[in-house]
C-alpha cells in the first residue's frame, strides 16, 4: 500500500469510527461541546502516532507471546504522559475531559492500529497510518461535537451562535443532543450519509 493511501484511507473509506465502528464510547462521551472534542482528537492522534512509531521501531524485538502486553504498556505510558501534560498546561480542558483521557487506554482504535499495522510495517508508514487514523477519528469527533454544541447548547466554542431573536420567537435548544443518545442518533446518521455517498456496504 502506498504511503499516500495509508494516510488518506482512514479519512473516509476506512474511517475508524464510521466504517470500523471503533472508539464509539469516547465519541459519545466527550462530544457535548466542540472544545473537548478537539482536544480529545488531538490527544488520541498524538497517542496513536507515538505508540505506532515505538512499536514499529521495536517490532522485530518483541517476543510474539507477550506482544499485547508490550503494546498495552506503551499505550498506557503514552496516555499517562498526555494526561500529565494536559494537567500541567491545559488545566481547564483536562478538568472537562476528566476520566476520558485515562480511558484512551481502552480505545480500540489505538490497540487496533498497533496490532493491525505497526507490528508489520516500517516506521514512516506507521507514523502516517497513525496520523491518518487519528485525523479520521478527530474529523468525526469534531463534526459531532460542533453539531451537538450548536443545536444542543446554542453555542460554539463557548460563544453564542444562535441569535437571541430566535429564542424570543420560541426556538429552544434540543435537550436530546446534550445527552449520549443524541450523539448515537447523530453518529448513525453520519454513517448512513457516508455510505449513501460512497456506496460502500457491508457484505451479506
Amino acid at each position, binding site marked *: 500500500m502506498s504511503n499516500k493511501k495509508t494516510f488518506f484511507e482512514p479519512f473516509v473509506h476506512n474511517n475508524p469510527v464510521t466504517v470500523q465502528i471503533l472508539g464509539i464510547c469516547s465519541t459519545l462521551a466527550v462530544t*457535548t461541546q466542540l472544545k473537548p472534542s478537539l482536544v480529545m482528537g488531538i490527544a488520541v492522534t498524538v497517542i496513536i502516532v507515538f505508540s505506532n512509531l515505538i512499536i514499529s521501531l521495536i517490532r522485530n*524485538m*518483541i*517476543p510474539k*507471546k*507477550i506482544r499485547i*502486553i*508490550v503494546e498495552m*504498556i*506503551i499505550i*498506557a*505510558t503514552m496516555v*499517562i*504522559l498526555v494526561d*500529565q*501534560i494536559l*494537567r*500541567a*498546561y491545559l*488545566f481547564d480542558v483536562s*478538568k472537562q475531559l*476528566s476520566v476520558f483521557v485515562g480511558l484512551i487506554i481502552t480505545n480500540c482504535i489505538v490497540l487496533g492500529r498497533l496490532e493491525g499495522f505497526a507490528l508489520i510495517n516500517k516506521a514512516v508508514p506507521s507514523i502516517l497510518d497513525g496520523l491518518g487514523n487519528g485525523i479520521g477519528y478527530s474529523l468525526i469527533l469534531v463534526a459531532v461535537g460542533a453539531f451537538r454544541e450548536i443545536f*444542543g*447548547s446554542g453555542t460554539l466554542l463557548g460563544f453564542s451562535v444562535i441569535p437571541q431573536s430566535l429564542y424570543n420567537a420560541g426556538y429552544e435548544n434540543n*435537550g436530546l443532543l*446534550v*445527552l449520549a443518545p443524541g450523539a448515537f442518533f447523530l453518529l448513525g446518521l453520519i454513517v448512513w450519509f457516508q455510505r449513501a455517498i460512497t456506496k460502500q456496504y457491508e457484505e451479506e
Partner: protein
Amino acid sequence: MRRSNLYTFVFITIVTIICAGLLSSAAYYLKDKQQTNVEVDMKKNILKAVKLLESNKISQQEILSSYNQNIESYAVNCLGEIIELPEGISVEDIDPEKEEIKPESERMYPVYVKKSGMDVDAYCIPIIGKGLWSTMYGYLALESDLNTILGITFYKQGETPGLGSEVESKKFQDKFIGKKIWDENNNLISINILKIEPSSDSPDLIHEVAGISGATKTSEGVMNLLLKDLNKYENYFRRLRESSSKKEITSNV
C-alpha cells in the same frame, strides 16, 4: 522465530523500566505546575464567589496577587471558635471532604474573608455535597451581615451534561444573589430550591430559588448541601451576628 523465556523476561523488564522512568520523571517535573494549577483554580473560585473576579481571562499571577491582597483565611471549630492550625498546615490545605470523616469536635472549618481596610466585606465558605451522579464542589459567599448571599460558585461536578451541569452556569448561580439564609426569628433556614419559579407574592420569596428544570435530583442536592454546610458554621455565624448587634446597640447609646 521462537525466543527463549530468558529473552522474554529480559525484554519485558527493560520495557517496563524505561516506561516507569519516563513516567516518574514526567510526574516529577510537572508536579509543581500541576499543584499551582489546582491552587490557582481554588483561589480563582473563592474570588469568583466574593465577586472580585469579573472575567475568566486573567493570568495566574493576577489571581494569586488579588487573592493575597483581598482575602484572609482562618479556621473555626464546630463551637464557632477560631482555632490555631497545626504546624505546617495552612487554611487552604484543609480538605473539607476529609474533615467530614473526623469526629465533630476535631473538625476544622475554613473561612475566607474579603476585607477592605479593617472591615470585613464578605465571608466565603466551601460547599460540598452529592448531586445525582457526582459530588459537587463550590463556594458560598455571604455579605457582611452573614445573611445575604453575595455569590455562589460550583467549580467541579459530574452531573448530567446540559441538565444538572447547569449548576456551573452563571444563569443558575445568579439566582442566589441577594437571597437570605436566616428568618426573622433568627433561625438558620438556608435556601429552599423549588421545582418551579417562586411566585412573586410568596412570603418566603427571599429564601426561595427556582431549581434547574430537568435536574430535580441535582437541585435537591444543592439544597441539601447548602443546609448541611451552613449548619457547620451556624455557631460561628451566631457569635458574629450577636457581637455585631451588640456593637450596634453600644454605638447607638
